Protein backbone atom coordinates (compact mmCIF):
# COMPACT_ATOMS: atom_id res chain seq x y z
CA UNK A 1 0.00 0.00 0.00
CA UNK A 2 2.82 2.42 0.74
CA UNK A 3 4.36 4.21 -2.19
CA UNK A 4 7.88 3.30 -1.25
CA UNK A 5 10.02 0.70 0.37
CA UNK A 6 9.74 0.45 4.10
CA UNK A 7 11.97 1.07 7.04
CA UNK A 8 13.76 -2.28 7.18
CA UNK A 9 15.46 -1.42 3.91
CA UNK A 10 17.17 1.49 5.63
CA UNK A 11 20.73 0.65 6.47
CA UNK A 12 22.78 1.48 9.52
CA UNK A 13 26.19 2.85 8.62
CA UNK A 14 29.49 3.02 10.38
CA UNK A 15 30.00 5.92 12.72
CA UNK A 16 31.43 8.97 10.97
CA UNK A 17 29.26 11.71 12.45
CA UNK A 18 30.90 15.06 11.81
CA UNK A 19 31.27 17.45 14.73
CA UNK A 20 31.15 20.47 12.42
CA UNK A 21 27.80 19.31 11.16
CA UNK A 22 26.42 18.77 14.67
CA UNK A 23 27.28 22.36 15.57
CA UNK A 24 25.01 23.58 12.75
CA UNK A 25 21.97 21.59 13.94
CA UNK A 26 19.59 23.99 15.77
CA UNK A 27 19.22 21.50 18.64
CA UNK A 28 22.91 21.82 19.41
CA UNK A 29 23.39 25.54 18.78
CA UNK A 30 25.68 27.12 21.39
CA UNK A 31 26.76 23.77 22.87
CA UNK A 32 30.45 23.39 23.72
CA UNK A 33 32.76 21.01 21.89
CA UNK A 34 33.25 18.72 24.89
CA UNK A 35 29.52 18.25 25.28
CA UNK A 36 29.12 17.72 21.55
CA UNK A 37 31.78 15.02 21.66
CA UNK A 38 29.79 13.13 24.29
CA UNK A 39 26.52 13.60 22.36
CA UNK A 40 28.22 12.42 19.18
CA UNK A 41 28.74 9.03 20.78
CA UNK A 42 24.97 8.59 21.09
CA UNK A 43 24.27 9.34 17.45
CA UNK A 44 23.94 6.62 14.84
CA UNK A 45 23.81 6.93 11.08
CA UNK A 46 21.25 5.51 8.72
CA UNK A 47 21.10 5.71 4.96
CA UNK A 48 18.06 5.24 2.77
CA UNK A 49 17.39 5.34 -0.95
CA UNK A 50 14.79 7.37 -2.76
CA UNK A 51 11.12 6.92 -1.81
CA UNK A 52 11.72 4.85 1.32
CA UNK A 53 9.38 5.23 4.28
CA UNK A 54 11.65 5.95 7.22
CA UNK A 55 8.91 6.75 9.74
CA UNK A 56 5.45 5.21 9.59
CA UNK A 57 2.41 6.99 11.01
CA UNK A 58 0.93 5.21 14.04
CA UNK A 59 4.03 3.18 14.83
CA UNK A 60 5.86 3.61 18.16
CA UNK A 61 8.49 6.34 18.01
CA UNK A 62 11.96 5.04 18.74
CA UNK A 63 14.29 7.67 17.32
CA UNK A 64 14.70 11.34 16.64
CA UNK A 65 16.27 12.03 13.25
CA UNK A 66 18.36 14.83 11.78
CA UNK A 67 18.84 15.03 8.02
CA UNK A 68 22.57 15.06 7.26
CA UNK A 69 22.14 15.02 3.47
CA UNK A 70 19.17 14.79 1.15
CA UNK A 71 15.58 15.69 1.95
CA UNK A 72 12.61 13.99 3.65
CA UNK A 73 8.93 14.65 3.13
CA UNK A 74 6.73 14.45 6.25
CA UNK A 75 3.09 13.76 5.47
CA UNK A 76 -0.26 12.50 6.71
CA UNK A 77 -2.38 10.06 4.74
CA UNK A 78 -6.19 10.02 4.82
CA UNK A 79 -8.30 6.85 4.82
CA UNK A 80 -8.85 7.44 1.10
CA UNK A 81 -5.11 7.52 0.52
CA UNK A 82 -4.81 11.28 0.01
CA UNK A 83 -1.60 12.83 1.23
CA UNK A 84 -1.13 16.16 2.96
CA UNK A 85 2.48 17.27 3.13
CA UNK A 86 3.26 18.77 6.54
CA UNK A 87 6.87 19.65 5.99
CA UNK A 88 9.94 19.08 3.87
CA UNK A 89 12.95 18.41 6.08
CA UNK A 90 16.27 19.64 4.73
CA UNK A 91 19.85 19.14 5.98
CA UNK A 92 20.42 20.18 9.64
CA UNK A 93 16.68 19.97 10.36
CA UNK A 94 14.99 17.30 12.47
CA UNK A 95 11.88 15.17 12.23
CA UNK A 96 9.91 12.82 14.49
CA UNK A 97 10.55 15.24 17.38
CA UNK A 98 7.02 15.27 18.76
CA UNK A 99 6.54 11.54 19.54
CA UNK A 100 10.07 11.32 20.88
CA UNK A 101 9.22 13.89 23.54
CA UNK A 102 5.59 13.01 24.29
CA UNK A 103 6.03 9.25 24.12
CA UNK A 104 3.12 8.75 21.72
CA UNK A 105 3.13 7.04 18.33
CA UNK A 106 4.46 8.72 15.19
CA UNK A 107 1.86 11.36 14.23
CA UNK A 108 2.94 11.36 10.59
CA UNK A 109 4.95 9.35 8.10
CA UNK A 110 8.26 10.39 6.55
CA UNK A 111 9.46 9.40 3.09
CA UNK A 112 12.83 10.16 1.52
CA UNK A 113 12.80 12.38 -1.57
CA UNK A 114 16.16 11.08 -2.77
CA UNK A 115 19.09 9.18 -1.26
CA UNK A 116 19.48 10.41 2.33
CA UNK A 117 21.88 10.20 5.21
CA UNK A 118 20.21 10.52 8.59
CA UNK A 119 21.64 11.00 12.06
CA UNK A 120 19.47 9.33 14.68
CA UNK A 121 19.27 9.49 18.47
CA UNK A 122 17.30 6.97 20.51
CA UNK A 123 14.38 8.39 22.46
CA UNK A 124 15.86 7.55 25.87
CA UNK A 125 19.23 9.02 24.92
CA UNK A 126 17.58 12.25 23.77
CA UNK A 127 15.72 12.53 27.06
CA UNK A 128 18.98 12.14 28.97
CA UNK A 129 20.67 14.77 26.78
CA UNK A 130 17.87 17.26 27.46
CA UNK A 131 18.02 16.57 31.21
CA UNK A 132 21.75 17.20 31.34
CA UNK A 133 22.06 20.19 29.01
CA UNK A 134 19.87 23.25 29.74
CA UNK A 135 21.07 24.95 26.54
CA UNK A 136 19.81 22.01 24.48
CA UNK A 137 16.50 22.00 26.39
CA UNK A 138 16.10 25.67 25.43
CA UNK A 139 17.04 24.92 21.82
CA UNK A 140 14.51 22.08 21.68
CA UNK A 141 11.83 24.42 23.01
CA UNK A 142 12.62 26.90 20.23
CA UNK A 143 12.56 24.22 17.53
CA UNK A 144 9.24 22.86 18.78
CA UNK A 145 7.76 26.35 19.12
CA UNK A 146 8.72 27.08 15.51
CA UNK A 147 7.14 23.76 14.49
CA UNK A 148 3.91 24.61 16.35
CA UNK A 149 3.79 28.00 14.64
CA UNK A 150 4.19 26.37 11.22
CA UNK A 151 1.52 23.75 11.97
CA UNK A 152 -0.92 26.37 13.33
CA UNK A 153 -0.51 28.23 10.05
CA UNK A 154 -1.23 25.03 8.13
CA UNK A 155 -4.31 24.32 10.28
CA UNK A 156 -5.55 27.82 9.53
CA UNK A 157 -5.09 27.24 5.80
CA UNK A 158 -6.82 23.87 5.81
CA UNK A 159 -9.65 24.78 8.18
CA UNK A 160 -10.69 28.35 7.62
CA UNK A 161 -9.49 29.37 4.21
CA UNK A 162 -11.15 28.12 1.08
CA UNK A 163 -7.86 27.73 -0.68
CA UNK A 164 -9.24 25.49 -3.43
CA UNK A 165 -11.72 28.22 -4.35
CA UNK A 166 -8.99 30.79 -4.54
CA UNK A 167 -6.80 28.54 -6.66
CA UNK A 168 -9.78 28.07 -9.00
CA UNK A 169 -10.11 31.85 -9.21
CA UNK A 170 -6.41 32.32 -9.92
CA UNK A 171 -6.51 29.76 -12.73
CA UNK A 172 -9.58 31.35 -14.29
CA UNK A 173 -7.98 34.78 -14.15
CA UNK A 174 -4.99 33.49 -16.08
CA UNK A 175 -7.05 32.45 -19.12
CA UNK A 176 -9.32 35.48 -19.08
CA UNK A 177 -7.35 37.34 -21.74
CA UNK A 178 -7.52 35.56 -25.07
CA UNK A 179 -4.08 36.66 -26.20
CA UNK A 180 -1.21 34.64 -27.56
CA UNK A 181 0.57 35.00 -24.22
CA UNK A 182 0.44 31.74 -22.28
CA UNK A 183 0.36 32.49 -18.55
CA UNK A 184 2.83 30.57 -16.44
CA UNK A 185 2.75 30.20 -12.68
CA UNK A 186 4.74 28.08 -10.24
CA UNK A 187 3.06 26.46 -7.25
CA UNK A 188 5.01 28.89 -5.08
CA UNK A 189 3.58 31.85 -6.99
CA UNK A 190 0.05 30.44 -6.74
CA UNK A 191 0.60 30.00 -3.00
CA UNK A 192 1.70 33.61 -2.65
CA UNK A 193 -1.32 34.80 -4.65
CA UNK A 194 -3.73 32.68 -2.59
CA UNK A 195 -2.07 33.56 0.72
CA UNK A 196 -1.28 29.99 1.56
CA UNK A 197 1.53 27.46 1.70
CA UNK A 198 2.94 25.69 -1.35
CA UNK A 199 1.96 22.33 0.17
CA UNK A 200 -1.70 23.36 0.21
CA UNK A 201 -1.58 24.43 -3.46
CA UNK A 202 -0.38 20.98 -4.52
CA UNK A 203 -3.27 19.38 -2.69
CA UNK A 204 -5.77 21.87 -4.14
CA UNK A 205 -4.58 21.21 -7.70
CA UNK A 206 -4.97 17.47 -7.18
CA UNK A 207 -8.49 18.01 -5.80
CA UNK A 208 -9.43 20.19 -8.78
CA UNK A 209 -8.17 17.44 -11.07
CA UNK A 210 -10.19 14.82 -9.18
CA UNK A 211 -13.28 16.99 -9.57
CA UNK A 212 -12.66 17.08 -13.32
CA UNK A 213 -12.18 20.85 -13.53
CA UNK A 214 -8.54 20.69 -14.63
CA UNK A 215 -6.03 18.21 -15.94
CA UNK A 216 -2.40 18.24 -14.89
CA UNK A 217 -0.39 17.37 -17.98
CA UNK A 218 3.31 17.55 -17.03
CA UNK A 219 4.08 21.30 -17.18
CA UNK A 220 0.54 22.25 -18.21
CA UNK A 221 -2.60 22.89 -16.22
CA UNK A 222 -5.39 22.36 -18.73
CA UNK A 223 -8.74 23.80 -17.73
CA UNK A 224 -11.00 21.01 -18.89
CA UNK A 225 -14.27 22.27 -17.38
CA UNK A 226 -14.42 26.05 -17.07
CA UNK A 227 -17.95 26.03 -15.67
CA UNK A 228 -17.02 23.56 -12.93
CA UNK A 229 -14.04 25.74 -12.05
CA UNK A 230 -16.30 28.81 -11.90
CA UNK A 231 -18.69 26.96 -9.58
CA UNK A 232 -15.82 25.99 -7.28
CA UNK A 233 -14.61 29.58 -7.28
CA UNK A 234 -18.07 30.93 -6.43
CA UNK A 235 -18.47 28.50 -3.54
CA UNK A 236 -15.96 30.55 -1.51
CA UNK A 237 -18.14 33.62 -1.23
Amino acid sequence: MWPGRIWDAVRVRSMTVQLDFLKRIPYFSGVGLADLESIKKLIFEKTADRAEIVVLEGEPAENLFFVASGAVRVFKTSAEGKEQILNIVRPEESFNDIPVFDGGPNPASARTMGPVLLYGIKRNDMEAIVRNHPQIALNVTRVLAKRVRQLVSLVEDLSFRHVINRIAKILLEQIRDETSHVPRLTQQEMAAMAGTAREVVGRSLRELEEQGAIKLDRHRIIITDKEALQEIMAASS
Partner: protein
Amino acid sequence: MAEMPAIDAQRCDGCGLCVNVCPCDALAIVDKVVTMIETAECNWCTDCEAVCHTGAITCPFEIVGQES
Protein backbone atom coordinates in the same frame (compact mmCIF):
# COMPACT_ATOMS: atom_id res chain seq x y z
CA MET B 1 12.99 20.32 -27.13
CA ALA B 2 11.24 19.28 -23.92
CA GLU B 3 10.11 21.94 -21.48
CA MET B 4 12.35 21.79 -18.44
CA PRO B 5 12.41 23.50 -15.03
CA ALA B 6 13.99 26.96 -15.05
CA ILE B 7 17.24 27.77 -13.28
CA ASP B 8 18.37 31.12 -11.94
CA ALA B 9 22.13 30.59 -11.67
CA GLN B 10 22.54 33.82 -9.67
CA ARG B 11 20.39 32.44 -6.88
CA CYS B 12 21.88 28.93 -6.81
CA ASP B 13 24.20 28.30 -3.88
CA GLY B 14 25.24 24.87 -5.19
CA CYS B 15 23.86 22.92 -2.23
CA GLY B 16 22.86 20.07 -4.57
CA LEU B 17 19.60 19.19 -2.81
CA CYS B 18 17.67 19.41 -6.10
CA VAL B 19 20.14 16.99 -7.71
CA ASN B 20 19.63 14.64 -4.77
CA VAL B 21 15.84 14.54 -5.05
CA CYS B 22 15.49 14.53 -8.85
CA PRO B 23 14.14 11.06 -9.77
CA CYS B 24 15.23 11.29 -13.42
CA ASP B 25 18.80 12.61 -13.12
CA ALA B 26 17.91 15.78 -14.99
CA LEU B 27 20.13 17.96 -12.81
CA ALA B 28 23.83 18.19 -12.10
CA ILE B 29 26.11 20.58 -10.25
CA VAL B 30 28.67 22.08 -12.63
CA ASP B 31 31.12 24.65 -11.27
CA LYS B 32 29.08 24.85 -8.04
CA VAL B 33 25.89 25.80 -9.89
CA VAL B 34 22.97 23.57 -10.80
CA THR B 35 22.68 22.75 -14.49
CA MET B 36 19.76 21.22 -16.37
CA ILE B 37 20.17 18.12 -18.48
CA GLU B 38 17.29 17.85 -20.92
CA THR B 39 15.48 14.55 -20.58
CA ALA B 40 12.11 13.20 -21.60
CA GLU B 41 11.99 11.49 -18.22
CA CYS B 42 11.22 14.73 -16.37
CA ASN B 43 7.56 14.40 -15.35
CA TRP B 44 7.35 17.82 -13.65
CA CYS B 45 7.16 16.35 -10.15
CA THR B 46 8.39 19.80 -8.91
CA ASP B 47 10.38 18.21 -6.08
CA CYS B 48 13.45 20.22 -7.16
CA GLU B 49 11.48 23.44 -6.71
CA ALA B 50 10.04 22.23 -3.39
CA VAL B 51 13.44 21.59 -1.79
CA CYS B 52 15.27 24.64 -3.17
CA HIS B 53 15.68 27.10 -0.30
CA THR B 54 16.95 29.96 -2.48
CA GLY B 55 14.26 29.81 -5.17
CA ALA B 56 16.90 29.15 -7.85
CA ILE B 57 14.94 26.40 -9.57
CA THR B 58 11.32 26.78 -10.57
CA CYS B 59 8.73 24.63 -12.36
CA PRO B 60 6.16 27.00 -13.84
CA PHE B 61 2.93 25.55 -15.16
CA GLU B 62 1.42 26.81 -18.41
CA ILE B 63 -2.24 27.48 -17.78
CA VAL B 64 -4.33 26.79 -20.84
CA GLY B 65 -7.96 26.20 -21.78
CA GLN B 66 -9.17 22.88 -23.11
CA GLU B 67 -9.11 24.09 -26.70
CA SER B 68 -5.46 25.22 -26.62
